[in-house]
């Protein structure tokens, strides 16, 4: 496997940051990811997707956060594919509000937001990256929208701090 260029490193770092919300931890995760990836002698089909998966697994190993989440699994259906990320598309927010509520989001929630907003992933791509059914991904998106609205409401009332 060949090395990643600087732009790719920045994206992987930001992905690590979306998971950890901690710059030092994101950097450490990125370093460990590079070590794992560059051990491979053969190039994966999608090096960046492969690296993101490694980074995510390392983060899970680090926090074991998924064990705390008892999430129902929803099967794929046509409706979820049709709806996609639409629940998030029409939300409006300013930067200060975003910074305030970001701290109250869980890692897998900030991860979904990052993949959607920065990487431009569709719901299907998010589900594939997270290795979950699309129905489950859509359920997360809906819950995330509700949580964001709720946090936003409290933020505007000044009681999120």
């Amino acid at each position, binding site marked *: 496997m060949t090395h990643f260029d*600087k732009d790719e490193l*920045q994206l992987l770092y930001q992905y690590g940051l979306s998971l950890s919300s901690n710059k030092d931890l994101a950097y450490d995760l*990125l370093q460990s990811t*590079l070590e794992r990836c560059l*051990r491979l002698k053969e190039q994966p089909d999608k090096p960046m997707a492969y690296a993101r998966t490694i980074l995510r697994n390392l983060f899970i190993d680090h926090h074991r956060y998924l064990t705390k989440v008892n999430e129902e699994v929803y099967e794929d259906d046509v409706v979820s594919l049709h709806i996609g990320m639409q629940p998030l598309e029409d939300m*409006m927010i300013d930067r200060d509000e975003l910074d305030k509520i970001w701290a109250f989001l869980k890692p897998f929630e900030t991860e979904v937001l990052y993949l959607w*907003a920065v990487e431009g992933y569709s719901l299907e791509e998010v589900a594939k990256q997270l290795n979950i059914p699309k129905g489950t991904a859509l359920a997360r998106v809906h819950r995330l929208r509700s949580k964001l609205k709720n946090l936003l409401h409290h933020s505007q009332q000044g009681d999120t701090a």
Partner: protein
Amino acid sequence: MKDSLKNSIQKKFENELLSNEQLDSLMQAQDKLLHQRDTTTKPVIRYASFFSLAAVVVFSCFLLFNKLEIRKDMPFAIASEVAHNHYKLKPLEVESSVLNEVSQYFTKLDFKPVSSAVIDPQQLTLLGARYCSLQGITAAQIRYQTEDGKLVTFYEVPYDENIYSAFPMISKGEEPVVSYANGVGVKMWVEKGLLMAVTL
């Protein structure tokens, strides 16, 4: 000022970048990792390398042991070579009874053949000389004859202790070493920076 959630998140991450130092460090780390990966040999190659190295060590020890053995028997080896050439009696390339004339013939040597304190010129008649070698080093082979007609072969060659091992030094008052080969006695010593050998 409100913006879409997507744009706000994008802007948030636009500012979250690795520093140039961190980037350079990661680029270097990648190069190092790739180099380590590519230079790590497969187990089969590693074992083959190990056995090759072991074979080289054993062979080197064998050579060293033999070299030491050869060095230990260097007087005999030189005596054998001198005796062999003594019996062959190859034609002389220069014939003269004057040592100075014989010496002038050896223009291709790195030294000038000289007289020796061990050789008594009163009892020997110089016949002539030819190029020869001792242990692969070009030497001067000088032929004498005794009063009773016996031929004496005398060798001179530049002395290198690393090649010939230690021989008695006349200048230190040491006595020449004598070794026998093919029924011929050969006396050997170092004098005037030359290894000298003469048949008895």
